[in-house]
């Protein structure tokens, strides 16, 4: 369990061992949690964020790169216990070969957590003929003065994008690589701190290299 009392950036690099962690965010504190995941075996991640203090906020950003017969089971929880709290979650995966991503995400808003603003989004890019993705987001809202949104997307490379790249002289593997990087790097576009953002971009590039 990790307690956050001020503004903190935590980067979790996940390989074969997985991640089971609970993050508790105190009054007016803010957490930026960055997940870097590369798998070829079976891995499970269960990051859970509890917004315990009024006015607290959390941003959870994750990129997942699956290869071989890798299986990622990722279960996230955004639990709003206090009023005036905000959480943002964006997890993107690129699954190649025969890899598989199973995402289950919950937003839970307690009755007293009025004025909650919660967002959750999961995007999956399938690049292998036998790649799979399952996305199971859930919202359970017991308060009424809230705004909670979630979205999920599963897609493959867009033929139009590949065509456009080809007309500019970028073909095959290079175009694929470019689109893939753009998809993953944009996860971190919203980070205001330029040093943190650049570092996240750099790590993402080494993740897929």
């Amino acid at each position, binding site marked *: 369990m990790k307690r956050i009392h001020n503004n903190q950036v935590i980067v979790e690099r996940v390989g074969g061992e997985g991640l089971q962690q609970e993050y508790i965010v105190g009054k007016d504190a803010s957490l930026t949690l960055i997940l870097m995941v590369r798998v070829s075996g079976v891995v499970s991640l269960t990051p859970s964020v509890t917004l315990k203090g009024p006015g607290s906020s959390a941003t959870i950003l994750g990129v997942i790169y699956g290869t071989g017969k890798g299986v990622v089971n990722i279960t996230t929880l955004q639990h709003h216990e206090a009023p005036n709290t905000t959480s943002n979650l964006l997890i993107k995966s690129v699954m190649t070969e025969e890899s598989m991503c199973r995402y289950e995400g919950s937003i839970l808003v307690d009755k007293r957590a009025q004025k909650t603003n919660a967002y959750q989004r999961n995007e999956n890019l*399938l690049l292998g003929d036998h790649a799979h993705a*399952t996305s199971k987001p859930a919202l359970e809202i017991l308060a*009424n003065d809230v705004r909670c949104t979630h979205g999920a997307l599963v897609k493959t490379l867009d033929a139009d994008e590949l065509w456009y790249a080809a007309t500019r002289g970028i073909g095959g593997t290079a175009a694929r690589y470019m689109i893939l990087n753009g998809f993953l790097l944009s996860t971190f576009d919203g980070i205001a701190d330029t040093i943190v953002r650049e570092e996240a971009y750099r790590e993402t590039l080494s993740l897929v290299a």
Partner: protein
Amino acid sequence: MNTQPPVGNYKYGFHKPEHYVFKSERGLTEDVVRQVSAHKGEPDWMRDRRLTALSVYGKKPLPLWGADLTAIKFDDIYYYIKPTKDKVSDWKDLPPEIRDTYDRIGIPEAEKKFLAGVSAQYESEVVYKSIQDTLSKKGVVFLDMDSGLKEYPDIVRQYFGTIIPTGDNKFAALNTSVWSGGSFVYVPKGVHVDLPLQAYFRINAANMGQFERTLIVAEEGSFVHYVEGCTAPIYTTDSLHSAVVEIIVKKGARVRYTTIQNWSTNVYNLVTKRARVEEEGTMEWVDGNLGSKVTMKYPSVYLMGRKARGEVLSIAYAGAHQHQDAGGKAIHFAPETTSQIISKSISSGGGRTSYRGLVHVYPGAKNAKSKVVCDALILDERSRSDTYPTMKIDEQNVQIEHEATVSKIGDEQLFYLTSRGVTKEQAQSMIVNGFIEPIVKELPLEYAVEMNRLIELQMEGSVG
């Protein structure tokens, strides 16, 4: 008249004296099933089907997910009641109580508007039907299910239980063992039925379960719009409604199935609805859930042929003591199939709405596209809203999107309207009507009007 006083503000809560020629004992036994079958003079295969279903029903557990069903007293329910001796084909020949019941929900009005045909169900049997000559000239069959079985046994036998098998779930098995009434619709190749076919369902006897069974077969290139509206009187004990609807959409055909469900708030409404869509066919479910104590209903489209399309449009409104657990399922088996699920739900006065849905893309369904949008409004602090969507994607070349939003009515929207001299109640009602408008505009006019009226009625006094 022994009309019961209405409970709460349920407008259609009234209760007419019962006249029936046969009523089974309470509870469900093999004898009851045999009696039902014998009473209907059914072929042996159907009786055997019912008996097999009964044993499956006994073995299946209640679902472990979704709404709380433990309060249903299965042994207290009458599983079959036959209201009048014979079917009548003229409105005037109906018994006065039954006619009065329909008068209250406006069937004659619907008739006056020259709607295609009315097949009204009172308790377990269709007692009144009028099919316009034009329909039968085109070869369209629109009967209650019992007559369908008698007159078209081959078609019924060919399709019955092929879309929703007996063992699909506990309530499908229950329905298969004691089904009674429902509609049988057969549209021949290339025929367009221009006007919607309508059927009204009612539960009247206290503690009476209603287990209608509907089968719609749309042959190649045909089109039909089937409309089902449900209202039920109020009773002091909880009652059970468990229907099964099977639809076959052949190549290039299109079927739209519209439901306005307004059961009284002590009915458990547990319904299985599914459509099989072949190449280039289209299935559209338009589903409004307003009444009932608990609704569990997820209209499904199985997209079996290339370019098949499925749509589910759903509205749910949960007031005090209500749980609307509704949604939709799209299962993609073939390439270039597309689906869209749009769900709007509103909870007020301590009610709970849940969206539960599934999009499943099987390997080989290349270039499948699906979009799911669920929006929920919570009107006060006692109410609750949940969203449980599932996406299973086993094919690479797909485009699958899901979006959901849960919020309350915006303070700014309310402030704007009240600053224009609109009362807070009216403003809320306007915003809610605007919220569900994308679905209401898909309803036939008289249903759209009724829907807006019902929502206003539900919202009275719910301003928080």
